């Protein structure tokens, strides 16, 4: 067979083989493994370009806001001063309440407080146009960030780290359709798994008998995954009943609006359960579980 004919058939068969191979995979994003590391290296190479753009555009934006666009700043200043006075007075109350809370916690024997180390990072970029919702932040493995670590903001949970470069990390937002997080309803402690649904909302499927209301707040359960317990996630905005009469679909709006995230806090805590599994099954436990023949080959060797 001459070379041109061979190339023709290789291309034709490739057109049909490529989708079959792709659709037979797990549909997970690039994260770990040697090929992933090579792929992430490309991002490490392109990071300086992104960093220069981010710094120069935010620098220009800041200069505009600080030195030129000053109309309305005086009015804003007055409002802020008034707000500051209010906050100062409420701070006095807050200090008192904090002391009282700590005293009550120690009386009740509660010891769980958030003592994790944290890393604050700035959002470099985020694709809002694509349905795959991740954001890139300015801290990576050099700051101790690892895959699976939770990311939060002042208002609540944001998502989980799925990819780490040397100077950047990618965070999969709660609204991404690949995201799943264990949560409970704060009011009555009903548990469920919250999954990403659309660009602005998440979804939770519960039994129809579970009593939930619109406006209920969901928080992380802390039982599965690396999130600590009690971090607010979102509020219930819609409840619809499935036709099977068994389950109800609950739409949840995250407390942190994905398109407004500018800074994130990454909690430097790894998933304790995954740590235990890796300890027992070895570092490549996940690959082994997906490919049992690999495990057999190693045993026979």
């Amino acid at each position, binding site marked *: 067979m001459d070379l041109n004919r061979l190339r023709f058939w290789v291309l034709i068969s490739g*057109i049909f083989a490529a989708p079959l191979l792709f659709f037979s995979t797990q*549909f997970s994003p690039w994260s770990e493994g040697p090929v*992933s590391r090579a792929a992430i290296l490309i991002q490490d190479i392109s990071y300086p370009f992104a960093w220069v753009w*981010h710094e120069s555009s935010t620098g220009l934006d800041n200069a505009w806001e600080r030195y030129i666009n000053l109309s309305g700043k005086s009015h804003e200043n007055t409002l802020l001063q008034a707000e500051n006075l209010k906050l100062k007075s409420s701070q006095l109350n807050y200090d008192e309440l904090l002391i009282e809370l700590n005293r009550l916690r120690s009386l009740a024997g509660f010891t769980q407080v958030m003592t994790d180390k944290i890393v604050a990072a700035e959002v470099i970029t985020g*694709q809002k146009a694509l349905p795959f919702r991740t954001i890139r932040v300015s801290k990576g493995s050099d700051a101790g960030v690892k895959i699976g670590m939770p990311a939060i903001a002042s208002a609540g949970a944001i998502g989980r780290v799925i990819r780490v470069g040397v100077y950047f990390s990618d965070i999969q937002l709660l609204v991404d359709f690949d995201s799943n997080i264990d949560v409970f309803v704060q009011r009555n402690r009903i548990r469920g798994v919250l999954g990403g649904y659309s660009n602005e909302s998440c979804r939770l499927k519960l039994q129809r008998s579970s009593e939930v209301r619109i406006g209920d707040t969901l928080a992380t359960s802390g039982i599965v995954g690396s999130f600590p317990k009690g971090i607010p996630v979102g509020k219930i905005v819609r409840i619809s009943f499935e036709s099977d009469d068994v389950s109800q679909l609950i739409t949840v709006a995250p407390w942190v609006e994905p398109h407004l995230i500018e800074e994130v806090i990454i909690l430097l805590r790894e998933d304790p359960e995954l740590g235990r599994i890796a300890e027992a099954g070895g570092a490549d436990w996940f690959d082994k579980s997906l490919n049992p023949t690999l495990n057999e080959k190693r045993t026979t060797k």
Partner: protein
Amino acid sequence: MNINFEMETPSFSTSDDHRRGWWPIRPNTGFYWADMLWLVVIGTIDNHVFPSLTGGILPFSLLTPWLVLTFVVAPAPLSVSALLLGSLIQETNAGCPRGMYLTAYWIIFAIIMLSRKLLSWRHAVPWIVTFFISSFFISNFESLIILLRQDGAQLDFFYFAKQLLRVSFSVIVGMALAYPWMLRFKGETTPP
């Protein structure tokens, strides 16, 4: 279908005449490292500059027309390198399933490789159709993945309006990039 397999590889992608005196920001510069560097820069513009300029709402894409033009005018080894690098840039910038863009761009690459000798790239219509179909295919492949992973609630009117804008932008950018090639390629005897 009667395909002439004996047809020569176009001289137009290797000729020195086409490498000099042009606007330097283009695929197939004649230097492998420059082609790869441009691809990284284009990927950065796509994933970092455009989202910050448009508030991330409009999904403009430079990479697809850039890759399509590379597939048409560049030798096969360079096209394969561009295909791998371009798709990995896209995939490691988003939380999309791995292999998604690799598969989509591979199919476009294979079809262009099979048909590039059969079309007259001197005219505008083959370029327009190629850019349109490629962008449309990428957009539809993404939609298909969404449909497979969840229901179609995301695929509303605004989603399709954005995709239409994205395809139109890709065609316009692609035509602007391809214009010098159309001028350079004068004969029908050595079609690319």
